[in-house]
């Protein structure tokens, strides 16, 4: 007879467990299947000089971060000051202006500071599709072998920077 009373209680706690876990899950954060896979190859014109180009293959042997952003994206502007700060700490940031006009993107960098070593452009959004971008800003950490090791969906937060990004960069640099 005791068991009869306990079973609903157990079921109740199982449901509560699932719901509790759900509280801390963000449905907008879709885990990228690209983490652990080679970064898709691309060659894109530079923002400041369209006659030159930047290619993912150029970065072989280096640890680097690819930040996809756009002048029309509000969250990117929230993130921007942190990126500028990261540059001062020597984080190898490379920018890709996603579905943006060159003039607008240049304006942002002029007004808010330029955190990128190089900024290339993806006017059509094709590179974004190859990288599985569905909402800028998105940031990738790519290791020396050209493998994606981490993806930040949405703006980089100070917590993510401290707990995940900086330790990972340090580890990969070894």
């Amino acid at each position, binding site marked *: *007879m005791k068991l009869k009373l306990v079973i609903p209680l157990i079921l109740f706690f199982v449901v509560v467990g699932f719901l509790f876990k759900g509280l801390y899950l963000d449905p907008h954060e*879709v885990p990228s299947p690209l983490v652990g896979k080679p970064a898709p190859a691309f060659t894109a014109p530079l923002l400041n000089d369209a006659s030159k180009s930047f290619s993912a293959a150029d970065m072989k042997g280096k640890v680097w971060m690819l930040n996809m952003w756009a002048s029309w994206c509000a969250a990117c502007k929230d993130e921007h000051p942190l990126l500028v700060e990261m540059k001062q700490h020597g984080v190898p940031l490379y920018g890709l202006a996603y579905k943006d006009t060159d003039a607008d993107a240049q304006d942002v960098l002029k007004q808010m500071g330029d955190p990128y070593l190089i900024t290339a452009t993806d006017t059509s959004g094709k590179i974004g599709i190859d990288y599985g971008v569905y909402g800028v800003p998105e940031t990738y950490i790519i290791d020396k072998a050209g493998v994606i090791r981490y993806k930040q969906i949405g703006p980089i937060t100070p917590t993510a920077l401290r707990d995940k990004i900086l330790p990972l960069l340090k580890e990969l640099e070894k």
Partner: protein
Amino acid sequence: MMRIFKSWLILLALIACSVANIHAADSADADAQIEVRLKALSTELRCLVCQNTTLADSSAPLAEDLRKEIRVLMHEGKTDEEVKAYLVERYGDFVLYRPPMQANTALLWIGPFIMLLIGAITLIVVLKKRSSIESSAEPSELESGEDK
């Protein structure tokens, strides 16, 4: 002589026209087919920007780009399965409204059946108990009170 030449010329022009027409009709037909396929396929794909809409219904810029990309892939002769694989490679299984049966989705697929089984077993046990109570000696007030 000139007349014969002229009529030949006209005939040739006519033939050329009709051939060109057939070609145009062919490619229009192929385009229409691709549109039908695109429409069917994109109702099974999730738009990642507004997650509860399909790629067919979404007006998000990314959905537009993806539809364009699917169209290009279909023109290249890719099958529906290949197009799906292309998207899953980039966005994960989440783009599929019908999740594939694999280790991490097993609970999703089997879960309802397990629940059904548990329910059925519970029902049978309860009914059996009840019928055995009913068939045994007349239930006294004390017994039913104990049950609660």
